[in-house]
């Protein structure tokens, strides 16, 4: 059960070789035994999981099962789950039992998937190391002195350590791709609008996008089929048909034009990561792809633009946490202003506080044009770079991160150095495009991630390109010692 693909697990379930109960029990026991070393879960929903497994087994017995019925999944604690604590990694929501299910949770439940629990994350998805969680940092299973990346660090660490076969994440500036890279697994951030945001706690609404972690592109395709699709409850959901992502996994790459952005291969890139990408290029050339240098000249401006847009939207979204309707409330407020101020200051951690203040400033009278509008103009320049590039190439390839996982505590005192670890991922969010990270090697025992970027709604193509690589290489089959 440990190293089986989702397709294999699904076939075993349909053939009654294993039951969902056995499978669920297997992962629950691994979580119990191994997660104390990693801290990747905030809540383990053991009883609900066993109940859902029982229901799945009944469906399997009646021949009413779908392809994902009975498969366990871990959910990032940013997705609202009916009757289950949904903390978003924050003290603010430590007492929040969601009164409804997010659309993606509903879709997984309807497909018969079994939720194992809610995974740890940077508070309100703000961070690149998972050190901003109210519930403590998550450890990287490849070396527990290192960060797993963030903000979806719990989901990434859980999948890397085989505590769950698949897990959800969200990606606002790299929060799926960066932890996937640092933990040596596959992750996909689909096109903005592809995955419903309803019930996914908002950080920066024009950038946030849900996605997945798994051991391979094939596994991602299986689960994305259920996760993706139009939702009336999300005003920015795209009403565009979802293809069966498993159908095109084995398409030939002959004649595929892959772009290499010059800006992604500067001196700032770790040498071993650069070499791993060069080796991957040779694999793709063997498969018939051709490589073309492209320019994304505004890449370096994407980080400053992001750190205006994301905080601005965050300051607006997080204004809802006021201590009145739900979430943390301070003791004995003396008046309404005191209630707001103390509830918020007690409930939010430092990084969230910093971003709310930056956003408040950027949106305040007299500064709106200089910061927010300026950043949105740069956003168009960044998106135009991609638009031009996709006239001559089908897919863009490069590193996911400039360096491998860093040590816990290494960057906590310097926000800017933390921000810069997202240099290759942020532009993709600004443009709203789909991106993936897949394992492409190791440096000093730590995984290396390779990023694939596609045109809008080209998830099928990305999964195809990733799967082709994974048929030729075995990086994605490596597992950390002790897990």
């Amino acid at each position, binding site marked *: 059960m440990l190293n089986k693909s989702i397709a294999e697990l699904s076939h075993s379930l349909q053939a009654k070789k294993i039951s969902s109960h056995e499978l669920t029990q297997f992962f629950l026991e691994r979580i119990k035994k191994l997660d104390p070393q990693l801290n990747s879960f905030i809540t383990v929903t053991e009883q609900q999981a066993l109940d859902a497994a029982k229901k799945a087994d009944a469906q399997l017995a009646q021949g009413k099962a779908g392809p994902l019925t009975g498969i366990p999944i871990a959910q990032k604690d940013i997705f609202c789950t009916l009757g289950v604590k949904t903390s978003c990694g924050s003290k603010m929501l430590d007492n929040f039992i969601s009164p409804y299910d997010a659309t993606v949770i509903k879709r997984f439940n309807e497909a018969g998937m079994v939720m194992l629990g809610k995974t740890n994350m940077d508070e309100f998805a703000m961070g690149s190391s998972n050190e901003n969680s109210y519930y403590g940092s998550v450890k990287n299973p490849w070396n527990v002195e290192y960060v797993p990346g963030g903000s979806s660090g719990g989901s990434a660490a859980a999948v890397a350590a085989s505590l769950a076969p698949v897990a959800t994440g969200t990606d606002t500036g790299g929060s799926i791709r960066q932890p996937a890279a640092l933990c040596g697994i596959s992750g996909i951030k689909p096109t903005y609008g592809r995955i419903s945001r309803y019930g996914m706690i908002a950080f920066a609404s*024009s950038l946030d996008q849900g996605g997945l972690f798994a051991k391979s592109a094939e596994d991602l395709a299986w689960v994305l089929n259920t996760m993706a699709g139009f939702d009336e409850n999300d005003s920015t959901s795209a009403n565009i048909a979802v293809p069966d992502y498993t159908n095109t996994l084995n398409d030939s790459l002959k004649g595929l034009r892959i772009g290499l952005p010059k800006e992604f291969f500067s001196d700032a890139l770790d040498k071993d990561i650069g070499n791993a990408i060069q080796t991957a290029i040779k694999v793709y050339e063997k498969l018939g792809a051709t490589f073309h240098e492209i320019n994304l000249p505004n890449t370096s401006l994407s980080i400053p633009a992001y750190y205006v847009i994301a905080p601005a939207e965050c300051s607006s979204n997080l204004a809802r946490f006021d201590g009145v309707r739900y979430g943390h409330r301070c003791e004995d407020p003396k008046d309404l202003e005191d209630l707001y101020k103390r509830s918020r200051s007690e409930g939010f951690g430092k990084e969230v506080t910093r971003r709310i203040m930056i956003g408040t400033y950027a949106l305040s009278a007299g500064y709106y044009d200089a910061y927010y509008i300026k950043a949105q*103009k740069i956003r168009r320049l960044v998106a135009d770079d991609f638009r031009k590039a996709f006239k001559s190439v089908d897919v863009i390839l490069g590193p996911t991160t400039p360096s491998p996982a860093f040590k816990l505590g290494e960057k906590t005192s310097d926000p800017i150095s933390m921000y810069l670890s997202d240099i290759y991922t942020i532009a993709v969010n600004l443009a709203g*495009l789909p991106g993936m990270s897949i394992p492409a090697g190791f440096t000093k025992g730590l995984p290396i991630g390779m990023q694939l970027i596609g045109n809008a709604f080209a998830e099928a193509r990305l999964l195809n390109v990733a799967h082709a690589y994974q048929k030729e290489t075995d990086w994605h089959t490596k597992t950390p010692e002790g897990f």
Partner: protein
Amino acid sequence: MSLTAGDVKKIAHLARLNLLENDVTLYTQQLSTILNFVEQMNQADTAEIEPFFNPLDLGQRLRPDVVTEQNQRDAFQAIAPQVEAGLYLVPQVIEGEE
């Protein structure tokens, strides 16, 4: 762009946050560093560029004007810090006769 402690206190008030005196010093320094960093944006000439608000450049979708929400007051108030008779309670806002 360097902020003063006074600026940071004003921003904190606008965001309805309470900062400890020690934190004011820390945030003044950190927010100034971040604002200096984002000023790199000024390297780009954007005079002729339209701002980009939605990645898909889609307009806002409209739906028929019919009621779709059910009344879930009790479920929502079950997780509220303080309610009474279906109302959310906060400290008194309006001066009134006792």
